[in-house]
């Protein structure tokens, strides 16, 4: 291939060094037009073409001390896989990623690269960083579509059995790593389908379920067994599992939705984002009556919250036929925790942001159906403990929003089922399981935990990182071998540009 071109950096006129070819701009993925995509649940971006991917890969400077890797919770050899793409060795690039990350097609779609690897990319100082996320997605899709899934060689069986609780990002990652190391791994999943938040929470248009299924199949090919319909803490307890398994990893997620505790929250048409998304994604309510699970389709839907889950809910409401879909958020735009990509996608689709707006109560009609929401305008005051400026109510600014569905997306707490049924498992005041940051070790011997059940609601990739770290720690406990990567501290002030 002839794409091998320049290193992307145009030398300054004054430098005196030979001029390089004109710099290649960061490549963009083609995507469904907003007017079209709000009518369907298909994925929004189409992904890179091979040419685009190789062109984008050629922008990478191949730093000797790559900072991007320091931003990756699972330590992917980023320059390594990008180099392979540049050389047209796409399948090899996928394998390179899979040395460190069993779920690249998922990470390439839902990781917040802009605050991780791409933020640290040295190119971002002068221009846009390399599209590491899009490239990861491209190679994973390419490998899957070519049907050339390679199952890495497993180490010889150790005879050790490990139970993994929950099949979300943390559990899947821990299971994959442990299986590769030769351990026998069984995942216990409460729902009828594996994937956790990847199947019940993240909508089809952002993460197609066929991709999650493919990644789960890959884990099964690695030898991981999955038992669905098992609620650990009810069907079987952690202590019962310990009789059969030498170690346990708990990655049960933050599955306890928070409500605002304002009047009207029990009216018909008020949903937690978890319920709204679960009915739609896991249970496929958008295909009712072909699928049996119902969901109220609002004409005017207000989603309360400013995170990715709020964006997912508001965009889902549009696809379910809402004429208006609003985001109601009590702080301002800069404080929104959602990924920039997601906010932009939402706005392109016509979602209206009501910023600095706080819901006070939800109004019902004579049949207890939602008919409106009373809100109050806010202004930004002094910074609070989170460092963000605290929203302060503006007196006399109350107003009524006519809406017929309200989705509450203000966060989740760790589900208490497991802590409550596991004596001696120490938890934080707010319910999170206490676990060592590097190893996932809990207060109980042989029990490890990671992901949202430890941190509270966070990102897919942080959960995966925790799953990976715990897998190494479990492996060390069971075999004595230390595999944890020694991350070099980023060298200060050192520029890797040529």
């Amino acid at each position, binding site marked *: 291939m002839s794409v091998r071109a320049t290193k992307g950096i145009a030398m300054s006129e004054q430098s005196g060094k030979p001029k390089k070819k004109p710099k290649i701009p960061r490549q963009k993925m083609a995507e469904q037009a907003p007017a079209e995509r709000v009518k369907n649940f298909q994925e929004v971006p189409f992904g890179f073409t091979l040419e685009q991917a190789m062109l984008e890969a050629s922008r990478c400077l191949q730093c000797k001390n790559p900072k991007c890797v320091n931003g990756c919770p699972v330590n992917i050899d980023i320059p390594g896989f990008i180099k392979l793409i540049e050389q047209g060795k796409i399948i090899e690039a996928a394998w390179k990623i899979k040395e460190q990350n069993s779920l690249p097609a998922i990470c390439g779609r839902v990781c917040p690269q802009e605050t991780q690897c791409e933020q640290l990319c040295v190119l971002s100082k002068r221009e846009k960083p390399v599209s590491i996320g899009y490239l990861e997605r491209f190679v994973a899709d390419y490998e899957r579509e070519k049907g050339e899934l390679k199952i890495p060689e497993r180490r010889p069986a150790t005879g050790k059995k490990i139970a993994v609780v929950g099949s979300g990002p943390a559990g899947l990652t821990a299971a994959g790593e442990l299986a590769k190391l030769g351990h026998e791994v069984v995942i216990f999943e*409460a729902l009828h389908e594996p994937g956790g938040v990847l199947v019940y929470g993240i909508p089809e248009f952002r993460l197609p379920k066929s991709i999650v299924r493919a990644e789960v199949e890959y884990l099964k090919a690695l030898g991981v067994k999955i038992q669905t319909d098992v609620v650990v803490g009810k069907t079987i307890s952690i202590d019962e599992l310990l009789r059969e398994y030498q170690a346990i990893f708990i990655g049960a997620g933050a599955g306890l939705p928070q409500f605002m505790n304002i009047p009207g*929250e029990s009216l018909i048409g008020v949903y*937690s984002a978890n319920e709204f998304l679960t009915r739609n994604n896991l249970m496929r309510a958008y295909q009712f*009556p072909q699928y*049996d699970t*119902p969901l109220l389709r609002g004409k005017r839907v207000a989603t309360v919250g400013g995170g990715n889950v709020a964006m997912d809910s508001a965009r889902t409401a549009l696809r379910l036929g809402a004429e208006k879909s609003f985001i109601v958020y009590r702080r301002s735009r800069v404080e929104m925790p959602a990924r920039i990509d997601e906010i932009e996608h939402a706005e392109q689709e016509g979602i209206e942001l009501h910023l600095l707006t706080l819901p006070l109560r939800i109004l019902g009609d004579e049949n207890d159906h939602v008919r409106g929401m009373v809100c109050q305008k806010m202004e930004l005051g002094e910074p609070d403990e989170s460092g963000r400026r605290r929203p302060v109510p503006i007196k006399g600014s109350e107003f009524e929003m006519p809406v017929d569905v309200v989705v509450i997306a203000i966060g989740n707490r760790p*589900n208490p089922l497991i802590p409550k049924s596991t004596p001696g498992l120490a938890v934080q005041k707010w319910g999170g399981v206490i676990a060592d940051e590097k190893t996932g070790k809990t207060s109980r011997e042989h029990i490890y935990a990671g992901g949202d059940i430890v941190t509270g609601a966070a990102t897919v990739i942080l959960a995966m990182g925790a799953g990976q770290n715990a897998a190494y720690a479990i492996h060390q406990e069971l075999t004595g071998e230390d595999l944890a990567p020694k991350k070099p501290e980023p060298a200060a002030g050192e520029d890797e540009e040529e």
Partner: protein
Amino acid sequence: MGSKIVKKELIAPSVYRIEVLAPQVAKKHQAGQFVILRLNEHGERIPLTVLDKDPQAGVITIVFQVVGKTTMMLEDLKVGDEILDLVGPLGNPTEIKNFGNAVCIAGGVGCACVYPIAKALKQAGNHLTVILGGRTSQHLILEKELAEISDRLEICTDDGSKGTHGFVSQVFKQMLDQNQRIDYVLAVGPVLMMKAICDLTRPKKLHTVVSLNAIMVDGTGMCGSCRVQVGGQVKFACVDGPEFDGADVDFNNLSARLRAYKEMEDLARELYQEQRQAK
């Protein structure tokens, strides 16, 4: 995988008792807990009452009334067929101890929920009174089983075809009026019935347990579909319940929330009815 149906019988009009192979659930189930099932890939998840269990045989007994599409499909399954997904036991077990004089009030299919609890209460040493009600004598379920375990069994029917002519709440009110000593009340049945009972016991500060049949999806506390207002607070029937102190429950809200999807449920039922007829 699936859970195989090993026995099925019609015990009242539109009410079935089925035995299902579910060894893990059978091993763990305690009175008051329930299961959630999904019949096929397109199905919804619904909670159902577990009447009994046989841990040795790995079998649980489920009682259901045919009301919507999912229970119609369940009605159409035969012995030997499999239920695709069955998960449990869910919810908290009933608090069982010797309260003294216990009165268990069961309306309609609520009997299925009451029976294992009443049995456990009897075993714990309570003097057990059961009030069993149904629309007609045909709709009385588990009469024989309840008669076996109770010290006193009161029967009533809406049409007077058996026992007292009237509602369970009327029979219960007579008991209260006669100043019989009552230490514990359990009421399970239609929302209106539970509300009527609690309206009677609230002024007397008589501890009354109700089991709430809210609409659920996951049954693990993850979605909040089953939230109920109890004492002004939001509670999840699946993980905080299904039993609550009846004096504090907002039954009107529960009743409204149970009707949330009525139109869609009607449509699903009609479409399934057409499918049935086409066969």
